[in-house]
């Protein structure tokens, strides 16, 4: 057999600096030490400038808002400590519904989105109706504003008075969310499927794999990995849009805030609900950033596609 081991990729190519120094008795030169001193000083300066500019910007904004003519009134209406304390437990109660909706709708959206994306990539005359249906579906529900979709489903379906069809606003609201988000997520999946290089398909087919096996074992695993960051982005978006089921009358965090606000004519409960949503999405957003960075790093290391 030909010898290939000489050509093996260099393993553990980056020994630590300390180790390298020990091996070849390296002492940093005066030039290097001077440059590093300069870089440290420059970094300290940059940090100081950033801190000052942040403080000044914050102070200016604070002064401008606090000195506005309507500030005392606004603070009382939107930022009342009393109403915030009263609203928090009720809003948190409502939030439980949002979280359940996110879990169930998120799972349904991923499954339905993937099915629609696959349907759109099927070749062959047999699949024409399926392909056309999937295309029409994504075109329609991506264009339809979510609020209108919600109103149609939540008030339209019960108006039909069908036997055995639910009139539960939570179920109907969730259905509307799934309808809209599946269209978005299907397009994300489709972009992933189409980003897999045709040579991968050629390699799989040349091994004798059928079109379906190629999709299942070769194309989809690579496609799904690539679209994880945009998918998480859509899930963040879904998380806050679960608040829209309040317009159907389901008592979620937003509707709980609305009930309190309309009783007291104070909008603080809305602010509380809003801040809770923000607090929930931040970890998810950071997680998305982390996954994206990791994917980019992997790609930078070089794969073959």
């Amino acid at each position, binding site marked *: 057999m030909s010898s*290939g081991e000489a050509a093996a*990729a260099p393993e553990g190519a980056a020994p630590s600096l300390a180790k390298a120094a020990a091996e070849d008795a390296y002492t940093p030169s005066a030039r290097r030490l001077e440059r590093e001193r300069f870089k440290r000083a420059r970094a300290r300066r940059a940090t100081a400038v950033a801190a000052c500019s942040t403080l000044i910007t914050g102070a200016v904004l604070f002064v401008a808002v606090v000195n506005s003519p309507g500030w005392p009134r606004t603070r009382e209406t939107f930022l009342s400590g009393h109403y915030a304390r009263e609203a928090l437990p009720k809003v948190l109660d409502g939030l439980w519904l949002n979280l359940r909706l996110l879990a169930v709708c998120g799972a349904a959206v991923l499954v339905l989105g993937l099915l629609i994306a696959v349907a759109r990539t099927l070749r062959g005359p047999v699949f024409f109706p399926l392909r056309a249906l999937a295309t029409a579906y994504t075109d329609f529900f991506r264009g339809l504003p979510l609020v209108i979709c919600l109103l149609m489903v939540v008030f339209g379906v019960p108006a039909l008075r069908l036997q055995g069809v639910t009139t539960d606003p939570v179920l109907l609201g969730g259905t509307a969310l799934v309808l809209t988000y599946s269209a978005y997520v299907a397009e994300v999946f489709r972009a992933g499927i189409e980003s897999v290089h045709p*040579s991968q398909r050629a*390699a799989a087919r*040349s*091994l*004798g794999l059928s079109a379906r096996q190629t999709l299942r074992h*070769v194309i989809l695993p*690579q496609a799904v*990995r690539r679209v994880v960051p945009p998918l998480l982005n859509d899930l963040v978006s879904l998380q806050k849009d679960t608040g829209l089921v309040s317009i159907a009358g389901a008592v979620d965090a937003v509707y709980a805030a609305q009930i309190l606000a309309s009783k007291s004519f104070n909008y603080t409960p809305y602010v509380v609900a809003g801040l809770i949503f923000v607090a929930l999405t931040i970890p998810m957003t950071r997680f998305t950033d982390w996954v994206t960075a990791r994917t980019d790093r992997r790609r930078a290391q070089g794969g073959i596609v």
Partner: protein
Amino acid sequence: MSDVTDANPAGSTGTRPVLRMEAVRKTFGGTVVLRDVDLEVAPHTVTALIGASGSGKSTLLRCANLLEEIDDGAILLDGEDITDPRVDPDAVRRRIGVVFQAYNLFPHMTVLDNITLAPRRVHGVARAEAEERARELLDRLGLGGKAGEYPDRLSGGQQQRVAIVRALAGRPRLLLLDEITAALDPELVGEVLGVVRDLKEDGMTMVLATHEMGFARDVADQVCFLDGGVVLERGTPAEVFGAPRQERTRKFLRRIVEAGRL
């Protein structure tokens, strides 16, 4: 590597060609890529396709594996017309191994999974058995320690050898090699060509498109010079390289010699 070619079907007696092309024509849009191509590949022989880029070498191989549909003519594998639309192309591809210029390994699978995917999913071999054979082949190609690695952790030469193992795992009747050293750094070419030499020793029937003229001269039983989609000249390496009859062949070989590739 004695059992690499042990899948020869019962009907492969005598000198009936493994692969036979009859007046094959292939066009892309208005461009004729293959024109009246005839080719015969006898069992246990190596056929080298040479010619400039765009002369139709790769297209010929893709047609033989049914990755492209031909416009006219016929391609026969062990006497069976595989270009008949009633033939199941997946069943044909199972009998042919292909190695690509860019390796085309599956980046999301380990080396072992790359190799055992087709045996398990297509040929219905049990996982343990498929893995055992994969490890045997890896050992023979000097890749014993790499079964659990992902392709992007391997050098180009190692990836291409894995691709060869993957093509062999289905015990193909015929191996098609499409410029398999063209993407490799020069110092890695030898290790891959060495594998091809060993396969020839074992009696594997192969068709290879190549720019490595020295290698084609050493290893091939038959050399075909393609030019503009036509097999302009064919014969033993001695005939084609030593005494080319066509002016275009002489010109092509002169350019190769000038480039230091022969």
